């Protein structure tokens, strides 16, 4: 039997089993064993995925997907990654992740049987939808129509390890929120949205959040190092598509904490659960339908777009209609104090959603003007920076006071007392910094001071001595994540403020000064490489008479084919990345030298790592506490 048919049969099994399982949502239930039908799709899609990898590794050019995306001379790792580096394969991976979540959840020890059944059933409905999508429009096991002996996929740009691993991680994040949606649906159907529900959903929300954070971080890291022009975030619509569920998911996670502690905000938490996964789906829709064209888009096909749209509409309309009827019944009547931990978390909720709104608007606005006004507009970084600035300031403010406020009610004076010293300390540091190095604007001082205060407050918060865990508290995770966020904004602001770039026309022995750093142009040498001649310039970064760093930007002249390339010399240090590029204009006796100084880039990556570790340690502590 041929392998493609095996793949098709496996996906059919997945389709049918999830369909049978999803009938549990109907009022009249057929009695089935949920264990079989919730786990079967996992086994079958796992096998199908392994099979797909196998035909890629085997360079089996009987399959269209392999022909289009692989090549027999590709390194093994890229053959494997090729399996999901395309629309069809990634959809299969998406289904696999959906089933993994359902599979793991089926083992959970939740005793509310009716609730559990509904969650699994709704998750199965989504698996059914996506599998149907795969089989109808995007089958990875489609055979070729003609005999092909070699593949087409040898694009060197796409052969990059980070590019191969970041989508799967991002998917786990996106898809993780599908289970969160199923929780919301299950909770509404069985009228079980309370403290206990929040406890159950907590680790899932956190898991999805960790993967999404890591996925976005890796994507940004890739853009910085591979694209090489010094940017790490471009407000590209596809980047925005991943940022939106992150923002909603972050807000959701904080609501879950309030619900768990105070048993309030039920309907709001449900709304956010639905919203978060909706945004994952909308992101998928925008990317897959070809409405947005960007780096990340796969070959677009209107039929696929239509299918995702219909599917998205069905899922969202079911969820929100259920919410319209159930929502008003869920909330506990309870008063919330203006000054309390929950109110400041709620304030941050609104700020996160405002950020989300800004990003959403910026992403869809060009589409809207194009549709209604037949006019292309582009929304640039300026829009985002200007609109987000005040929101970020408030967000940081509430992140500083929130963790120090007490649940229920607190006095403003005591919150101020607990943070004012660190605030003054930070202000002094930033002021000192401003006077010593550079005059900073008020906005920069405000942002940097708040970030630093947040970092200090969170460090203090995380390391407070506790009897059970010596110096580590269960809130360590929270502290790490908050430190990470503070550091992220701090390094982004500092990078934007202190990044320098200048073009010089230089002769040998000139001293080029950029940002108080002296670069001495020492020599130009000719060199013979394997198949090229090169001109290598030597620049030294000087501190008085001592040489700190050596840069050797190079111009290569290849004889066959006759080509000139210029090789950037980059030195990455912990605090700054420095780029030196050289260019020799014809008929001139000087060279063009471009120097970039980019501070604190490594801190951006560090901050993301901190957030991820924070999330992970929160999960570890939770498991430990339960035991």
């Amino acid at each position, binding site marked *: 039997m041929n392998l493609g048919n095996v793949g098709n049969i496996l996906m059919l099994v997945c389709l049918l089993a999830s369909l049978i399982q999803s009938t549990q949502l109907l009022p009249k239930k057929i009695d089935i064993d949920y264990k079989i039908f919730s786990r079967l799709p996992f086994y079958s899609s796992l096998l199908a995925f392994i099979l797909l990898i196998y035909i890629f590794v085997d360079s089996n050019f009987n399959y269209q997907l392999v022909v289009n995306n692989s090549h027999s001379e590709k390194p093994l790792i890229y053959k494997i990654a090729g399996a999901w580096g395309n629309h069809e394969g990634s959809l299969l991976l998406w289904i696999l992740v959906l089933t993994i979540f359902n599979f793991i959840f089926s083992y959970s020890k939740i005793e509310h049987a009716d609730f559990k059944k509904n969650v699994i059933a709704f998750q199965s409905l989504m698996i059914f939808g996506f599998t149907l999508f795969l089989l109808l429009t995007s089958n990875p096991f489609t055979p070729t129509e003609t005999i092909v002996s070699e593949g*087409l996929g040898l694009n*060197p740009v796409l052969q990059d390890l980070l590019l191969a691993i970041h989508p799967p991680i991002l998917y786990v994040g996106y898809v993780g929120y599908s289970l969160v949606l199923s929780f919301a649906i299950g909770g509404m159907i069985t009228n079980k949205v309370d403290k206990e529900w929040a406890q159950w959903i907590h680790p899932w929300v956190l898991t999805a959040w960790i993967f999404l954070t890591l996925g976005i971080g890796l994507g940004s890291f890739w853009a910085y190092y591979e694209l090489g022009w010094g940017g790490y975030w471009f407000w590209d619509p596809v980047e925005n598509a991943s940022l939106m569920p992150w923002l909603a998911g972050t807000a959701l996670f904080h609501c879950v904490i309030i619900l768990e502690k105070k048993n309030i905000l039920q309907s709001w938490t449900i709304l956010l659960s639905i919203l978060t996964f909706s945004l994952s789906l909308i992101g998928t829709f925008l990317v897959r339908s070809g409405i947005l064209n960007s*780096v990340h*888009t796969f070959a*677009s096909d209107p039929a696929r777009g239509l299918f995702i749209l219909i599917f998205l509409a069905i899922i969202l*309309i079911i969820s929100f209609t259920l919410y319209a*009827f159930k929502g008003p019944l869920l909330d506990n009547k309870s008063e919330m104090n203006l000054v309390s931990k929950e109110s400041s978390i709620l304030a941050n909720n609104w700020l996160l959603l405002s950020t989300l709104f800004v990003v959403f608007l910026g992403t869809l606005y060009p589409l809207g003007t194009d549709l209604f006004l037949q006019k292309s507009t582009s929304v*640039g970084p300026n829009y985002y920076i200007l609109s987000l600035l005040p929101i970020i300031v408030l967000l940081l403010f509430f992140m500083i006071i929130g963790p120090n406020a007490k649940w229920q009610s607190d006095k403003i004076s005591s919150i101020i007392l607990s943070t004012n010293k660190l605030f003054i300390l930070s202000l002094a540091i930033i002021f000192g910094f401003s006077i010593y190095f550079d005059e900073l604007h008020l906005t920069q001082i405000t942002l940097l001071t708040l970030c630093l205060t947040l970092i200090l407050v969170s460090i203090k918060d995380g390391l407070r001595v506790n009897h059970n865990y010596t110096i580590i508290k269960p809130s360590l995770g929270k502290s790490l994540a908050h430190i990470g966020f503070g550091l992220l904004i701090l390094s982004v602001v500092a990078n934007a403020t202190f990044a320098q770039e200048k073009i010089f026309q230089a002769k040998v022995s000139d001293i080029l000064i950029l940002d108080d750093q002296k670069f001495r142009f020492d020599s130009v040498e000719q060199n013979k490489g394997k198949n090229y001649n090169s001109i290598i310039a030597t620049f030294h970064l000087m501190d008085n008479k001592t040489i700190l760093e050596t840069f050797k930007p190079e111009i290569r002249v290849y004889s066959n084919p006759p080509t000139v390339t210029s090789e950037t010399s980059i030195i990455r240090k912990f605090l700054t990345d420095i780029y030196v590029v050289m260019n020799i204009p014809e008929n001139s006796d000087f060279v063009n030298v471009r120097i970039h100084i980019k501070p604190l880039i490594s801190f951006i990556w560090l901050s993301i790592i901190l957030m991820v570790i924070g999330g992970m340690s929160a999960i570890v502590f939770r498991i430990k506490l339960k035991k």
Partner: protein
Amino acid sequence: MKNLKLKYFLPVVITIVFVIFFSQLLKKDVTKLSSQLIEKPVPTFNMPTLLNDNQSFSTIDVIASDIALVNIWSSWCIPCRSEHEILMLLSKIEGIDLYGINYKDKEDNALDFINKLGNPFKKIGVDNNGRSSMVWGVYGVPETFIIHKGTVIYKHIGPIHMNELEEIILPILGDIL
């Protein structure tokens, strides 16, 4: 049904509005997202050329043309082949200069490609490690930029299909010609 509250219906109403909006977008399906370079001057670059050893292809060439179309292509890129006949068509329009940037390619293959399929370009720059094209923000091939009097006015990601030529490219060129 006493407990029904209108505001709880808001999300479902918003969802329906967006679904309608998205479905309209799907119908259109010509929207291409603009690049960071749009409305900006042509980036500074300089590279050797494919056919003429002593020349270079640089910003100056692009600025010198009233209307320039810069196409990033490669012989290993399959969509570029299908796009090539469209470029051949475009090259016949008077008043437009087509320039190519040969991206991460081997010279023999690139020459072979041009010899077989024809040369629509006034000049072809060579960028065989992809570094010189970075200023253009190139993500992949093919990509096409339309430049009017030194300002980038449009970026097309992916191959230009016949319907896109008619619905997008020609109207833009029509406006500025």
